[in-house]
Protein backbone atom coordinates (compact mmCIF):
# COMPACT_ATOMS: atom_id res chain seq x y z
CA UNK A 1 0.00 0.00 0.00
CA UNK A 2 2.47 2.63 1.20
CA UNK A 3 6.14 2.13 0.65
CA UNK A 4 8.79 4.65 1.63
CA UNK A 5 12.37 4.14 0.50
CA UNK A 6 15.33 6.06 1.87
CA UNK A 7 13.36 9.25 2.46
CA UNK A 8 15.15 12.42 3.46
CA UNK A 9 13.38 15.61 4.43
CA UNK A 10 13.56 18.59 6.74
CA UNK A 11 12.87 22.26 7.19
CA UNK A 12 14.97 24.38 4.86
CA UNK A 13 18.64 23.64 5.45
CA UNK A 14 17.80 21.60 8.55
CA UNK A 15 17.71 17.91 7.68
CA UNK A 16 15.47 16.04 10.09
CA UNK A 17 14.70 12.78 8.33
CA UNK A 18 17.86 10.97 7.33
CA UNK A 19 16.98 8.10 5.05
CA UNK A 20 13.90 6.34 6.33
CA UNK A 21 12.42 3.23 4.71
CA UNK A 22 9.17 1.63 5.76
CA UNK A 23 6.04 0.05 4.38
CA UNK A 24 2.44 -0.33 5.45
CA UNK A 25 0.06 -3.02 4.13
CA UNK A 26 -3.73 -2.77 3.79
CA UNK A 27 -5.57 -3.65 6.97
CA UNK A 28 -2.44 -3.23 9.03
CA UNK A 29 -1.71 -0.80 11.86
CA UNK A 30 1.93 0.12 11.88
CA UNK A 31 3.27 2.01 14.86
CA UNK A 32 5.93 4.66 14.62
CA UNK A 33 7.38 5.19 18.04
CA UNK A 34 10.27 7.13 19.48
CA UNK A 35 11.08 9.86 21.91
CA UNK A 36 10.02 13.45 21.52
CA UNK A 37 12.04 15.05 18.72
CA UNK A 38 13.00 11.80 17.05
CA UNK A 39 11.37 12.94 13.81
CA UNK A 40 8.05 11.09 13.83
CA UNK A 41 5.89 14.09 13.04
CA UNK A 42 8.30 15.37 10.43
CA UNK A 43 8.31 11.97 8.75
CA UNK A 44 4.52 11.90 8.56
CA UNK A 45 4.41 15.44 7.23
CA UNK A 46 7.04 14.61 4.62
CA UNK A 47 5.13 11.52 3.47
CA UNK A 48 1.91 13.54 3.26
CA UNK A 49 3.58 16.27 1.24
CA UNK A 50 3.14 18.99 3.85
CA UNK A 51 6.87 19.61 3.93
CA UNK A 52 9.09 19.01 0.89
CA UNK A 53 11.06 15.79 0.52
CA UNK A 54 14.68 16.22 -0.45
CA UNK A 55 15.47 12.67 -1.47
CA UNK A 56 14.01 9.18 -1.62
CA UNK A 57 10.98 7.44 -3.04
CA UNK A 58 7.42 7.22 -1.83
CA UNK A 59 5.11 4.68 -3.46
CA UNK A 60 1.37 4.66 -2.99
CA UNK A 61 -0.15 1.48 -4.43
CA UNK A 62 3.10 1.04 -6.40
CA UNK A 63 2.73 4.47 -7.94
CA UNK A 64 5.60 6.89 -7.26
CA UNK A 65 4.20 9.94 -5.51
CA UNK A 66 7.34 11.62 -4.19
CA UNK A 67 7.12 15.39 -4.55
CA UNK A 68 3.33 15.47 -4.75
CA UNK A 69 1.58 18.24 -2.90
CA UNK A 70 -0.56 17.48 0.14
CA UNK A 71 -3.85 18.18 -1.61
CA UNK A 72 -2.99 15.88 -4.52
CA UNK A 73 -2.05 13.08 -2.13
CA UNK A 74 -5.28 13.60 -0.23
CA UNK A 75 -7.24 13.17 -3.44
CA UNK A 76 -5.23 10.04 -4.13
CA UNK A 77 -6.42 8.45 -0.88
CA UNK A 78 -3.74 9.37 1.64
CA UNK A 79 -5.06 11.18 4.71
CA UNK A 80 -2.95 12.79 7.40
CA UNK A 81 -4.45 13.73 10.74
CA UNK A 82 -1.76 16.05 12.04
CA UNK A 83 -0.95 16.73 15.64
CA UNK A 84 -2.98 19.70 16.79
CA UNK A 85 -5.76 18.27 14.64
CA UNK A 86 -5.96 21.00 12.00
CA UNK A 87 -9.70 21.51 12.14
CA UNK A 88 -11.64 24.41 10.67
CA UNK A 89 -12.39 25.92 14.03
CA UNK A 90 -14.81 28.55 12.80
CA UNK A 91 -16.92 26.06 10.85
CA UNK A 92 -19.52 23.74 12.29
CA UNK A 93 -18.77 20.10 13.00
CA UNK A 94 -21.04 19.14 10.13
CA UNK A 95 -19.23 21.50 7.76
CA UNK A 96 -15.92 20.05 8.89
CA UNK A 97 -17.20 16.59 8.04
CA UNK A 98 -18.48 17.84 4.70
CA UNK A 99 -15.03 19.19 3.94
CA UNK A 100 -13.82 15.63 4.52
CA UNK A 101 -15.71 14.63 1.38
CA UNK A 102 -13.73 17.11 -0.68
CA UNK A 103 -10.92 14.78 -1.83
CA UNK A 104 -13.39 12.41 -3.48
CA UNK A 105 -15.76 15.18 -4.60
CA UNK A 106 -18.51 13.61 -2.52
CA UNK A 107 -21.79 15.46 -2.50
CA UNK A 108 -25.48 15.05 -1.87
CA UNK A 109 -26.75 11.67 -0.78
CA UNK A 110 -23.33 9.97 -1.00
CA UNK A 111 -21.83 12.54 1.35
CA UNK A 112 -24.75 12.40 3.76
CA UNK A 113 -24.51 8.62 3.82
CA UNK A 114 -20.81 8.71 4.69
CA UNK A 115 -21.34 11.28 7.41
CA UNK A 116 -24.18 9.21 8.83
CA UNK A 117 -21.95 6.14 8.91
CA UNK A 118 -19.30 8.06 10.80
CA UNK A 119 -21.84 9.39 13.26
CA UNK A 120 -22.64 5.78 14.05
CA UNK A 121 -18.98 5.12 14.66
CA UNK A 122 -18.46 8.33 16.64
CA UNK A 123 -21.75 8.89 18.46
CA UNK A 124 -20.33 11.84 20.41
CA UNK A 125 -20.13 13.85 17.20
CA UNK A 126 -23.77 13.41 16.26
CA UNK A 127 -24.93 15.58 19.13
CA UNK A 128 -22.48 18.30 18.23
CA UNK A 129 -23.07 18.55 14.49
CA UNK A 130 -24.22 22.16 14.55
CA UNK A 131 -21.60 23.39 17.02
CA UNK A 132 -18.44 25.12 15.95
CA UNK A 133 -15.44 22.80 15.87
CA UNK A 134 -13.54 25.24 18.05
CA UNK A 135 -16.02 24.69 20.87
CA UNK A 136 -15.40 20.94 21.14
CA UNK A 137 -13.39 19.30 23.88
CA UNK A 138 -9.97 17.83 23.14
CA UNK A 139 -11.24 14.28 22.74
CA UNK A 140 -14.11 15.35 20.52
CA UNK A 141 -11.74 17.34 18.34
CA UNK A 142 -9.59 14.28 17.88
CA UNK A 143 -12.65 12.21 16.99
CA UNK A 144 -13.72 14.87 14.55
CA UNK A 145 -10.28 15.05 12.95
CA UNK A 146 -10.20 11.28 12.45
CA UNK A 147 -13.81 11.19 11.30
CA UNK A 148 -13.16 13.95 8.81
CA UNK A 149 -10.23 12.04 7.40
CA UNK A 150 -12.41 8.95 7.04
CA UNK A 151 -15.25 10.62 5.12
CA UNK A 152 -13.49 10.08 1.80
CA UNK A 153 -12.61 6.47 2.69
CA UNK A 154 -8.85 6.90 2.41
CA UNK A 155 -6.70 3.89 1.67
CA UNK A 156 -4.04 4.95 4.10
CA UNK A 157 -4.38 7.03 7.22
CA UNK A 158 -1.43 8.73 8.89
CA UNK A 159 -2.19 9.60 12.51
CA UNK A 160 0.12 11.93 14.38
CA UNK A 161 -0.04 11.64 18.17
CA UNK A 162 -3.80 11.18 18.44
CA UNK A 163 -3.57 10.61 22.20
CA UNK A 164 -1.62 13.76 23.08
CA UNK A 165 -3.29 15.96 25.63
CA UNK A 166 -6.21 13.62 26.28
CA UNK A 167 -7.42 12.19 29.56
CA UNK A 168 -6.48 8.49 30.07
CA UNK A 169 -10.04 7.32 29.59
CA UNK A 170 -10.25 9.10 26.26
CA UNK A 171 -6.88 7.73 25.20
CA UNK A 172 -8.21 4.21 25.57
CA UNK A 173 -11.30 5.18 23.60
CA UNK A 174 -9.24 6.66 20.76
CA UNK A 175 -7.01 3.58 20.60
CA UNK A 176 -10.10 1.38 20.59
CA UNK A 177 -11.50 3.24 17.69
CA UNK A 178 -8.24 3.12 15.76
CA UNK A 179 -8.14 -0.60 16.38
CA UNK A 180 -11.60 -0.95 14.86
CA UNK A 181 -10.55 0.86 11.72
CA UNK A 182 -8.27 -2.03 10.91
CA UNK A 183 -11.30 -4.14 10.20
CA UNK A 184 -12.35 -1.70 7.53
CA UNK A 185 -9.19 -2.60 5.61
CA UNK A 186 -7.54 0.79 5.96
CA UNK A 187 -3.77 0.89 6.26
CA UNK A 188 -2.76 2.97 9.26
CA UNK A 189 0.55 4.50 10.18
CA UNK A 190 0.35 5.66 13.76
CA UNK A 191 2.99 7.91 15.32
CA UNK A 192 2.74 7.91 19.09
CA UNK A 193 4.60 8.57 22.29
CA UNK A 194 2.21 6.36 24.21
CA UNK A 195 4.22 3.20 23.53
CA UNK A 196 2.23 0.67 25.51
CA UNK A 197 -1.16 1.63 24.11
CA UNK A 198 0.16 1.85 20.58
CA UNK A 199 1.97 -1.47 20.58
CA UNK A 200 -1.16 -3.19 21.84
CA UNK A 201 -3.18 -2.31 18.76
CA UNK A 202 -0.38 -2.31 16.17
CA UNK A 203 0.79 -5.33 14.24
CA UNK A 204 4.26 -4.04 13.51
CA UNK A 205 6.31 -1.12 14.75
CA UNK A 206 9.22 1.05 13.72
CA UNK A 207 11.35 2.76 16.35
CA UNK A 208 12.78 6.13 15.40
CA UNK A 209 15.75 7.95 16.80
CA UNK A 210 17.28 11.18 15.45
CA UNK A 211 15.55 10.89 12.11
CA UNK A 212 16.38 7.26 11.47
CA UNK A 213 14.66 3.92 11.94
CA UNK A 214 16.78 2.13 14.50
CA UNK A 215 14.61 -0.92 15.03
CA UNK A 216 11.58 -2.63 13.63
CA UNK A 217 9.63 -5.78 14.19
CA UNK A 218 6.30 -7.26 15.25
CA UNK A 219 4.63 -5.14 17.89
CA UNK A 220 4.08 -8.04 20.24
CA UNK A 221 7.80 -8.77 20.33
CA UNK A 222 8.72 -5.19 21.08
CA UNK A 223 6.13 -5.10 23.79
CA UNK A 224 7.61 -8.22 25.41
CA UNK A 225 11.27 -7.29 25.23
CA UNK A 226 12.04 -5.25 28.33
CA UNK A 227 15.54 -4.63 27.15
CA UNK A 228 14.34 -2.95 24.01
CA UNK A 229 11.83 -0.94 25.93
CA UNK A 230 14.49 0.33 28.27
CA UNK A 231 16.97 1.14 25.56
CA UNK A 232 14.77 2.85 23.04
CA UNK A 233 11.47 3.67 24.56
CA UNK A 234 12.52 5.47 27.67
CA UNK A 235 11.02 3.01 30.13
Amino acid sequence: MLKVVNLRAGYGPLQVINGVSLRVQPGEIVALIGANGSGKSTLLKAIAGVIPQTEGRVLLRDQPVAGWTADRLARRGLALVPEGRALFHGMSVLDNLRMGGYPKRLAGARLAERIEALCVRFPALREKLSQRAGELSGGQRQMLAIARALVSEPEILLLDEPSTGLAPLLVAEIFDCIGQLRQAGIAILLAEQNVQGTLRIASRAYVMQTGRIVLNGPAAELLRSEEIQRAYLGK
Partner: protein
Amino acid sequence: MAAFLQQLINGVSLGAIYALCALGYTMVYGVLQFINFAHGDVFMVGAFAGYYCAPLAAKLFQPQSALGAVMVLLTSMTVCAALGVLIEKLAYRPLRDHPKLTVLITAIGVSLFLEFAGQKFFQADPKPFPELLPHAQYNPMPNLVISSDQLIVMGVSVLLLAGLHFIVRHTKLGTAMRAVAFNPQAAALVGINLDRIISFTFALGSALAAAAGILYAMNYPAIDPLMGVMPGLKAFVAAVLGGIGNLPGAALGGLIIGVVETFVGGTAWSAYRDAIAFAILIVILLVKPAGLLGRTEVEKV
Protein backbone atom coordinates in the same frame (compact mmCIF):
# COMPACT_ATOMS: atom_id res chain seq x y z
CA MET B 1 -37.47 64.45 6.96
CA ALA B 2 -37.29 64.47 3.18
CA ALA B 3 -33.78 65.87 3.36
CA PHE B 4 -32.78 63.14 5.77
CA LEU B 5 -34.26 60.42 3.56
CA GLN B 6 -32.61 61.95 0.54
CA GLN B 7 -29.19 61.83 2.21
CA LEU B 8 -29.85 58.32 3.41
CA ILE B 9 -30.68 57.10 -0.09
CA ASN B 10 -27.67 58.85 -1.56
CA GLY B 11 -25.54 57.36 1.20
CA VAL B 12 -26.84 53.85 0.76
CA SER B 13 -26.28 53.88 -2.98
CA LEU B 14 -22.71 55.10 -2.48
CA GLY B 15 -22.25 52.63 0.36
CA ALA B 16 -23.43 49.74 -1.81
CA ILE B 17 -20.58 50.48 -4.20
CA TYR B 18 -18.08 50.57 -1.35
CA ALA B 19 -19.56 47.33 -0.07
CA LEU B 20 -19.03 45.51 -3.38
CA CYS B 21 -15.46 46.71 -3.47
CA ALA B 22 -14.85 45.94 0.21
CA LEU B 23 -15.82 42.31 -0.35
CA GLY B 24 -12.81 41.85 -2.62
CA TYR B 25 -10.43 43.14 0.05
CA THR B 26 -11.97 41.02 2.71
CA MET B 27 -12.01 37.80 0.67
CA VAL B 28 -8.38 38.14 -0.33
CA TYR B 29 -7.47 38.98 3.23
CA GLY B 30 -9.37 35.92 4.35
CA VAL B 31 -7.35 33.47 2.27
CA LEU B 32 -3.97 35.24 2.10
CA GLN B 33 -3.90 37.65 5.08
CA PHE B 34 -2.68 40.53 3.04
CA ILE B 35 -4.10 43.79 1.75
CA ASN B 36 -4.44 43.71 -2.00
CA PHE B 37 -3.59 47.32 -2.59
CA ALA B 38 -4.24 47.02 -6.30
CA HIS B 39 -7.91 46.23 -5.73
CA GLY B 40 -8.99 49.87 -6.13
CA ASP B 41 -7.27 49.97 -9.48
CA VAL B 42 -9.04 46.83 -10.62
CA PHE B 43 -12.20 48.82 -9.85
CA MET B 44 -10.87 51.53 -12.19
CA VAL B 45 -10.07 49.01 -14.93
CA GLY B 46 -13.62 47.70 -14.53
CA ALA B 47 -15.03 51.15 -15.26
CA PHE B 48 -12.77 51.53 -18.31
CA ALA B 49 -13.63 48.07 -19.59
CA GLY B 50 -17.25 49.21 -19.43
CA TYR B 51 -16.37 52.46 -21.19
CA TYR B 52 -14.80 50.63 -24.13
CA CYS B 53 -17.43 47.92 -24.24
CA ALA B 54 -20.45 50.25 -24.16
CA PRO B 55 -20.33 51.38 -27.84
CA LEU B 56 -20.06 47.74 -28.87
CA ALA B 57 -23.03 46.80 -26.74
CA ALA B 58 -24.99 49.73 -28.15
CA LYS B 59 -24.28 48.41 -31.65
CA LEU B 60 -25.18 44.81 -30.83
CA PHE B 61 -28.37 45.66 -29.00
CA GLN B 62 -30.42 48.83 -28.89
CA PRO B 63 -28.57 51.82 -27.43
CA GLN B 64 -29.47 52.18 -23.76
CA SER B 65 -31.11 48.77 -23.68
CA ALA B 66 -31.15 46.54 -20.64
CA LEU B 67 -29.45 43.71 -22.52
CA GLY B 68 -26.68 46.06 -23.57
CA ALA B 69 -26.15 47.20 -20.01
CA VAL B 70 -26.02 43.62 -18.80
CA MET B 71 -23.49 42.79 -21.49
CA VAL B 72 -21.32 45.74 -20.46
CA LEU B 73 -21.51 44.66 -16.84
CA LEU B 74 -20.69 41.02 -17.54
CA THR B 75 -17.88 41.81 -19.95
CA SER B 76 -16.27 44.14 -17.49
CA MET B 77 -16.62 41.59 -14.68
CA THR B 78 -15.02 38.92 -16.86
CA VAL B 79 -12.15 41.18 -17.88
CA CYS B 80 -11.43 42.10 -14.28
CA ALA B 81 -11.75 38.54 -13.03
CA ALA B 82 -9.06 37.59 -15.53
CA LEU B 83 -6.98 40.59 -14.52
CA GLY B 84 -7.25 39.69 -10.84
CA VAL B 85 -6.19 36.12 -11.48
CA LEU B 86 -3.31 37.30 -13.63
CA ILE B 87 -2.09 39.77 -11.00
CA GLU B 88 -2.15 37.09 -8.33
CA LYS B 89 -0.31 34.60 -10.52
CA LEU B 90 2.42 36.94 -11.67
CA ALA B 91 2.99 39.21 -8.71
CA TYR B 92 1.70 37.60 -5.51
CA ARG B 93 2.06 33.85 -5.95
CA PRO B 94 5.88 33.86 -6.16
CA LEU B 95 5.91 35.68 -2.82
CA ARG B 96 3.47 33.39 -1.03
CA ASP B 97 5.97 32.36 1.66
CA HIS B 98 7.55 35.79 2.07
CA PRO B 99 6.81 38.31 4.82
CA LYS B 100 3.46 40.04 4.34
CA LEU B 101 5.13 43.42 4.02
CA THR B 102 7.00 42.25 0.93
CA VAL B 103 3.71 41.30 -0.67
CA LEU B 104 2.16 44.58 0.47
CA ILE B 105 4.89 46.57 -1.27
CA THR B 106 4.49 44.43 -4.38
CA ALA B 107 0.77 45.15 -4.28
CA ILE B 108 1.51 48.87 -4.09
CA GLY B 109 3.78 48.38 -7.10
CA VAL B 110 0.97 46.67 -9.01
CA SER B 111 -1.38 49.46 -8.00
CA LEU B 112 1.02 52.13 -9.27
CA PHE B 113 1.56 50.15 -12.44
CA LEU B 114 -2.15 49.99 -13.20
CA GLU B 115 -2.52 53.71 -12.49
CA PHE B 116 0.40 54.80 -14.62
CA ALA B 117 -0.38 52.35 -17.40
CA GLY B 118 -3.97 53.62 -17.23
CA GLN B 119 -2.78 57.21 -17.55
CA LYS B 120 -0.73 56.23 -20.56
CA PHE B 121 -3.25 54.05 -22.37
CA PHE B 122 -6.62 55.47 -21.27
CA GLN B 123 -5.23 59.05 -21.12
CA ALA B 124 -5.16 61.01 -17.89
CA ASP B 125 -8.08 63.33 -18.63
CA PRO B 126 -11.51 62.42 -17.24
CA LYS B 127 -13.85 60.78 -19.75
CA PRO B 128 -17.63 61.00 -19.65
CA PHE B 129 -19.05 57.57 -19.01
CA PRO B 130 -21.62 56.52 -21.65
CA GLU B 131 -25.22 56.37 -20.48
CA LEU B 132 -25.97 52.69 -20.38
CA LEU B 133 -29.61 53.10 -19.54
CA PRO B 134 -32.13 55.92 -19.94
CA HIS B 135 -32.36 58.24 -16.97
CA ALA B 136 -35.50 58.63 -14.97
CA GLN B 137 -36.31 60.32 -11.69
CA TYR B 138 -38.95 59.53 -9.19
CA ASN B 139 -40.54 61.84 -6.64
CA PRO B 140 -42.15 59.70 -3.98
CA MET B 141 -42.58 62.77 -1.78
CA PRO B 142 -41.80 66.48 -2.02
CA ASN B 143 -38.10 67.31 -1.95
CA LEU B 144 -37.13 63.68 -2.35
CA VAL B 145 -35.64 62.60 -5.66
CA ILE B 146 -34.57 59.07 -6.43
CA SER B 147 -32.80 58.53 -9.71
CA SER B 148 -33.08 55.35 -11.72
CA ASP B 149 -29.31 54.97 -11.48
CA GLN B 150 -29.51 54.85 -7.71
CA LEU B 151 -32.15 52.16 -7.92
CA ILE B 152 -29.99 50.21 -10.35
CA VAL B 153 -26.99 50.49 -8.04
CA MET B 154 -28.99 49.13 -5.13
CA GLY B 155 -30.69 46.44 -7.18
CA VAL B 156 -27.51 45.18 -8.82
CA SER B 157 -25.66 45.25 -5.50
CA VAL B 158 -28.33 43.22 -3.78
CA LEU B 159 -28.29 40.69 -6.64
CA LEU B 160 -24.53 40.38 -6.54
CA LEU B 161 -24.46 40.08 -2.76
CA ALA B 162 -27.07 37.34 -2.90
CA GLY B 163 -25.06 35.58 -5.62
CA LEU B 164 -21.91 35.82 -3.57
CA HIS B 165 -23.68 34.52 -0.52
CA PHE B 166 -24.90 31.54 -2.51
CA ILE B 167 -21.44 30.82 -3.93
CA VAL B 168 -19.70 31.04 -0.59
CA ARG B 169 -22.25 29.09 1.40
CA HIS B 170 -23.61 26.53 -1.01
CA THR B 171 -21.02 25.65 -3.61
CA LYS B 172 -17.98 23.42 -3.32
CA LEU B 173 -15.58 26.16 -4.34
CA GLY B 174 -17.10 28.59 -1.89
CA THR B 175 -16.92 26.13 0.97
CA ALA B 176 -13.35 25.36 0.05
CA MET B 177 -12.63 29.08 0.11
CA ARG B 178 -13.98 29.35 3.63
CA ALA B 179 -11.97 26.31 4.63
CA VAL B 180 -8.77 27.88 3.31
CA ALA B 181 -9.55 31.06 5.23
CA PHE B 182 -9.98 29.10 8.46
CA ASN B 183 -6.98 26.83 8.14
CA PRO B 184 -4.91 26.56 4.94
CA GLN B 185 -2.95 23.54 6.10
CA ALA B 186 -6.02 21.56 7.07
CA ALA B 187 -7.53 22.61 3.74
CA ALA B 188 -4.61 21.08 1.88
CA LEU B 189 -4.98 17.91 3.92
CA VAL B 190 -8.57 17.44 2.83
CA GLY B 191 -7.46 17.74 -0.76
CA ILE B 192 -8.13 21.40 -1.50
CA ASN B 193 -5.83 22.83 -4.14
CA LEU B 194 -4.74 26.11 -2.56
CA ASP B 195 -3.65 27.72 -5.83
CA ARG B 196 -7.00 27.08 -7.41
CA ILE B 197 -8.93 28.49 -4.48
CA ILE B 198 -6.76 31.59 -4.36
CA SER B 199 -7.23 32.17 -8.09
CA PHE B 200 -10.96 31.71 -7.61
CA THR B 201 -10.97 34.22 -4.76
CA PHE B 202 -9.19 36.81 -6.85
CA ALA B 203 -11.54 36.20 -9.77
CA LEU B 204 -14.59 36.62 -7.56
CA GLY B 205 -13.31 39.70 -5.76
CA SER B 206 -12.14 41.39 -8.95
CA ALA B 207 -15.43 40.70 -10.71
CA LEU B 208 -17.25 42.43 -7.85
CA ALA B 209 -14.81 45.34 -8.06
CA ALA B 210 -15.56 45.62 -11.77
CA ALA B 211 -19.28 45.73 -11.08
CA ALA B 212 -18.65 48.40 -8.44
CA GLY B 213 -16.59 50.34 -11.00
CA ILE B 214 -19.42 50.29 -13.54
CA LEU B 215 -22.01 51.31 -10.96
CA TYR B 216 -19.77 54.10 -9.69
CA ALA B 217 -19.18 55.34 -13.24
CA MET B 218 -22.93 55.36 -13.93
CA ASN B 219 -23.50 57.65 -10.95
CA TYR B 220 -20.56 59.96 -11.36
CA PRO B 221 -20.15 61.88 -14.55
CA ALA B 222 -16.58 61.01 -15.50
CA ILE B 223 -13.98 58.30 -15.13
CA ASP B 224 -10.19 58.64 -15.03
CA PRO B 225 -7.23 56.36 -14.29
CA LEU B 226 -6.91 57.55 -10.69
CA MET B 227 -10.60 57.17 -9.90
CA GLY B 228 -9.95 53.92 -8.02
CA VAL B 229 -7.58 55.31 -5.41
CA MET B 230 -10.02 56.98 -3.02
CA PRO B 231 -12.95 54.53 -3.36
CA GLY B 232 -10.38 51.74 -3.02
CA LEU B 233 -9.00 53.10 0.23
CA LYS B 234 -12.48 53.76 1.57
CA ALA B 235 -13.65 50.29 0.63
CA PHE B 236 -10.68 48.91 2.46
CA VAL B 237 -11.63 50.97 5.48
CA ALA B 238 -15.11 49.52 5.14
CA ALA B 239 -13.68 46.00 5.18
CA VAL B 240 -11.69 46.74 8.33
CA LEU B 241 -14.67 48.45 9.92
CA GLY B 242 -16.85 45.38 9.43
CA GLY B 243 -14.09 43.03 10.54
CA ILE B 244 -11.65 42.04 7.87
CA GLY B 245 -12.17 38.54 6.54
CA ASN B 246 -15.86 38.75 7.37
CA LEU B 247 -18.16 39.00 4.33
CA PRO B 248 -21.32 40.41 5.93
CA GLY B 249 -19.03 42.75 7.84
CA ALA B 250 -17.59 44.15 4.63
CA ALA B 251 -21.06 44.82 3.26
CA LEU B 252 -22.15 46.50 6.49
CA GLY B 253 -18.92 48.51 6.68
CA GLY B 254 -19.41 49.73 3.12
CA LEU B 255 -22.91 50.94 3.87
CA ILE B 256 -21.81 52.72 7.04
CA ILE B 257 -18.92 54.49 5.32
CA GLY B 258 -21.15 55.51 2.42
CA VAL B 259 -23.91 56.85 4.63
CA VAL B 260 -21.60 58.67 7.07
CA GLU B 261 -19.65 60.21 4.24
CA THR B 262 -22.80 61.44 2.53
CA PHE B 263 -24.17 62.94 5.72
CA VAL B 264 -20.88 64.68 6.48
CA GLY B 265 -20.90 65.93 2.90
CA GLY B 266 -24.21 67.61 3.60
CA THR B 267 -22.93 69.62 6.56
CA ALA B 268 -20.52 72.49 7.03
CA TRP B 269 -17.79 69.87 7.34
CA SER B 270 -18.21 68.78 3.73
CA ALA B 271 -14.62 69.74 2.87
CA TYR B 272 -13.46 67.01 5.22
CA ARG B 273 -15.53 64.22 3.71
CA ASP B 274 -12.46 62.46 2.31
CA ALA B 275 -10.89 62.39 5.76
CA ILE B 276 -13.92 61.00 7.53
CA ALA B 277 -13.40 57.42 6.39
CA PHE B 278 -9.87 57.46 7.77
CA ALA B 279 -10.97 58.96 11.04
CA ILE B 280 -13.49 56.13 11.36
CA LEU B 281 -10.75 53.65 10.50
CA ILE B 282 -8.42 54.95 13.17
CA VAL B 283 -11.09 54.99 15.81
CA ILE B 284 -12.29 51.48 14.99
CA LEU B 285 -8.77 50.06 14.95
CA LEU B 286 -7.98 51.58 18.29
CA VAL B 287 -11.26 50.68 19.94
CA LYS B 288 -12.17 47.36 18.38
CA PRO B 289 -9.39 46.15 16.07
CA ALA B 290 -11.36 43.06 15.08
CA GLY B 291 -14.03 45.25 13.52
CA LEU B 292 -17.77 45.39 14.13
CA LEU B 293 -18.57 41.80 13.21
CA GLY B 294 -15.11 40.30 13.48
CA ARG B 295 -14.06 38.02 16.27
CA THR B 296 -10.88 38.81 18.09
CA GLU B 297 -8.48 36.03 17.41
CA VAL B 298 -5.21 35.28 19.07
CA GLU B 299 -2.41 35.96 16.68
CA LYS B 300 -1.01 32.75 15.25
CA VAL B 301 2.62 32.18 16.13
